[in-house]
């Protein structure tokens, strides 16, 4: 087999929103860029984003601005966010949305003809630019078409569309190559043929998305196997706060085939209410103290809010996702769930059939075609589903450079820090664009100052040997069965509610699967062989699960996407701690690291009484770092 080889300035792994935005930035700066993705071009998980992209353009309520957005993001993340990422995101999000429009995106409009913005959980003002409930598709298609436009330009100017920007679809990267301690490229295989492929490049941007497939019930597609998290760990980078996973409160629970598939938060934003099997609108019971002044404690006020948002508090259905997910979980555990273990979400009583089909077209479609439920007439059954990982590669906020590995960058869901302990809906799509662009800029700067760093033959051969290994074994473990075992463990022991004892058990069991996974064998040959592909994906998921369980057992408090039954309260001392995962070649190790303190100018954006709910008295006395 002759090895397929390429040389680029930048290799972007992942062709979702973040990867494509990074690629556009690097190409615009004159660099040559390869985009590598596991699926066909344009199929990335970004298409699944429904509700919208949060940006304080102020088109619907002109009280909105970046400072309000910043505050909402920090509150949503329970102040564990890296302040600088939240700040950059809030400041730059509007420009990234307007830029999409210049590239052909067609968002829904306000009466004045501006980009319309909708309400969403945790956002003080209507802030989400959207296209019905298929905003993610609009984003990915716009970026895809932008890539094509750049290629057409290269075609006109050089006669070769793919000379400086090429998409390598259906390629899995198995290793980030390093030489002299710095990034030298990426190595992997073509999924179609199983043949190996080498990219030599001084800069690699990881934009691989999430880890949902580590869990049994998830809204993520097969691609969400934590590849980038694992690639970064193995390359010597760190992961930050991997204990924080977002269980989206409303996934479909029935029928079985669609269990976990997302029901967009816009259903609640548009007026959907949650009830239990007794018909109670239960969310009023679950408003935490820190949110009491922002959320209505009675149905009358909650209903009035839809008509008059300035003089009423928001309905509790629009609390941040972690709160709603825990509330649903508690109702079901208390025996007040539906037949299929969920609760009811109903939008039919508030909106006409026509309006529902107009504002929530893909939800109507999804329930009608997959569950035989007409949401204009009846309630949906919903329950929590593993949706998003807040934890991820530890990066420098301004450049998206991975801490600890020169030449490595990370953006989007695979990067950590931006969302703290819990992400607000709508912040993901703009996160992709803001930090995708910054990762592209970071890579450009790096390449210009460092130049090429070729990979040695020994490094390449080592990477190749790993791909060959599962074919050399016979009669070993089955990757599919091990994957199912892992999903049971994470679901039962590292899920939405955790305890120390269960996490300890999970860590042992994950280690056991990891040991057995070294013995996976593959049937068939290399050509488009899903069993072979899963063997590599599984290795990544095991590292992610280990990192999550080990971080979770150390954090003795409950905050955002990490709930400990044995430590139910939020603890201000723990707020000052990030958990950093690293990999020593054998196992994941966790260390505590101090969270960067809010600088004074950002500290002063908050009412000090609000900060008292999150911070220690010493922190309050200091008033932020200077």
């Amino acid at each position: 087999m002759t090895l397929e080889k390429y040389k680029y300035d930048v290799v972007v792994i992942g062709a979702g929103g973040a990867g494509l935005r990074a690629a556009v930035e690097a190409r615009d700066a004159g660099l040559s860029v390869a985009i590598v993705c596991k699926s066909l071009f344009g199929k990335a998980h970004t298409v699944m984003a429904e509700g919208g992209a949060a940006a304080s353009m102020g088109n619907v309520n002109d009280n909105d601005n970046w400072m309000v957005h910043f505050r909402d993001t920090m509150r949503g993340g329970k102040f564990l966010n890296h302040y600088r990422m939240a700040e950059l995101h809030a400041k730059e999000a509007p420009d990234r949305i307007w830029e999409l429009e210049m590239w052909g995106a067609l968002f829904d409009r306000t009466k004045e003809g501006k980009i319309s913005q909708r309400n969403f959980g945790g956002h003080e003002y209507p802030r989400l630019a959207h296209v019905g409930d298929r905003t993610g598709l609009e984003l990915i298609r716009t970026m895809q078409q932008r890539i094509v436009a750049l290629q057409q330009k290269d075609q006109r100017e050089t006669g070769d569309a793919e000379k400086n920007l090429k998409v390598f679809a259906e390629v899995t990267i198995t290793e980030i190559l390093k030489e002299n301690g710095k990034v030298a490229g990426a190595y992997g295989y073509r999924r179609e043929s199983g043949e190996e492929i080498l990219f030599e490049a001084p800069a690699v941007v990881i934009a691989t998305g999430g880890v949902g497939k580590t869990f049994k019930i998830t809204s993520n597609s097969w691609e969400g196997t934590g590849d980038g998290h694992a690639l970064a760990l193995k390359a010597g980078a760190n992961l930050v706060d991997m204990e924080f996973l977002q269980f989206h409160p409303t996934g479909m629970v029935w029928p079985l085939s669609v269990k976990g598939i997302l029901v967009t938060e816009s259903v609640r934003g548009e007026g959907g209410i949650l009830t239990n099997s007794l018909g109670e609108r239960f969310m009023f019971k679950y408003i935490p103290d820190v949110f009491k002044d922002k959320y209505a404690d009675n149905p009358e006020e909650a209903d009035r809010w839809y008509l008059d948002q300035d003089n009423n508090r928001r309905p509790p259905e629009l609390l941040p996702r972690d709160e709603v997910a825990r509330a649903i979980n508690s109702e079901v555990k208390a025996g007040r769930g539906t037949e299929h273990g969920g609760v009811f979400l109903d939008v039919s009583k508030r909106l006409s059939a026509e309006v529902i089909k107009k504002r929530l077209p893909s939800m109507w479609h999804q329930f009608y075609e997959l569950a035989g439920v007409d949401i204009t007439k009846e309630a949906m059954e919903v329950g929590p589903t593993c949706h998003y990982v807040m934890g991820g590669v530890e990066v420098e906020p301004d450049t998206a450079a991975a801490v600890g590995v020169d030449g490595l960058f990370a953006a989007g869901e695979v990067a950590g820090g931006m969302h703290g302990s819990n992400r607000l809906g709508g912040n993901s799509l703009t996160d992709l664009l803001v930090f995708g662009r910054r990762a592209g800029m970071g890579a450009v700067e790096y390449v210009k100052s460092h130049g090429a760093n070729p990979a040695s033959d020994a490094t390449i051969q080592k990477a190749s040997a790993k791909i060959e290994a599962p074919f050399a074994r016979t009669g070993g473990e089955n990757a599919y069965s091990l994957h199912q075992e892992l999903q049971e463990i994470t679901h039962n022991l590292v899920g939405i509610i955790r305890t120390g004892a269960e996490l300890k058990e999970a860590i042992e069991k994950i280690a056991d699967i990891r040991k057995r996974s070294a013995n996976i064998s593959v049937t068939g040959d290399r050509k488009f062989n899903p069993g072979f592909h899963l063997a590599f994906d599984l290795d990544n998921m095991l590292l992610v699960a280990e990192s999550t369980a080990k971080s979770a057992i150390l954090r003795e408090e409950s905050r955002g996407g990490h709930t400990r039954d044995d430590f139910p309260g939020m603890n201000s001392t723990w707020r000052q701690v990030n958990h950093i995962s690293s990999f020593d070649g054998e196992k994941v190790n966790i260390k505590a690291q101090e969270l960067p303190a809010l600088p004074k100018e950002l500290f002063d954006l908050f009412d000090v009484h609000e900060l008292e709910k999150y911070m220690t008295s010493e922190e309050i006395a200091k008033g932020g770092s200077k």
Partner: protein
Amino acid sequence: MARTLKLRIWRGDDKTGALQDVTVEANHGEVVLDIIHRVQATQMGDLAVRWNCKAGKCGSCSMEINGKPRLACMTQISAYGEEETITITPLRAFPVIKDLVTDVSYNYKKAMEIPAMEMPAGMKPGEPRMQQVDVERSQEFRKCIECFLCQNTCHVIRDHEENKKSFAGPRFFIRIAELDMHPLDILRNRKKTAQEEHGLGFCNITKCCTEVCPEHIKITDNAIIPMKERVADEKYDPVRWLGSKIRRREEVL
């Protein structure tokens, strides 16, 4: 497990292949993609199939089920009778790579041939003002999930490999229509090039593409027919024809 399903799955590659009989357990409420995954996990570890979102949003799991182009994730097994054998084959219009996976690169080549959106010079980010009614026409076409079922079913290329060179197919007719109706796009003559360069004239409006579209986009009625009508207007109306000749020099090509 609620029932036992009989399947015939096409297995093979670009050179050879055959239908293979499989019996597999199935649960109430499952879709064909679930069944394929169960076959993969228990009987055929190397069965090749594309899929991503499993929610009808990404358009990856296109295949032919009992001869009909469909998304496997949106096809309920309850639609088939207890005794019925479900036959699953790869898309016919594209070359097989392996089993249910085909080489759809034709579509990406065609995408490259459609000139991109062109903004008016001097328009700055944040400036565009458009009314909802004006964006809705193009929004319908932007719902496309690129499953390529319309391309696969279109008889112009389904059994006529030779037409592929000069025919962009329904997916890219709606792309052209989308840009043509886009309130901001200033590139002229999109309808004319659809006819002259992208093979719109091959289409004889049998609406097969509309029928298979999982997003229910009215490909024929809302994109193809309006473009054909206006192309015809411009072609045969002598006044318009003269006008188009006179204007030509200023046009962006």
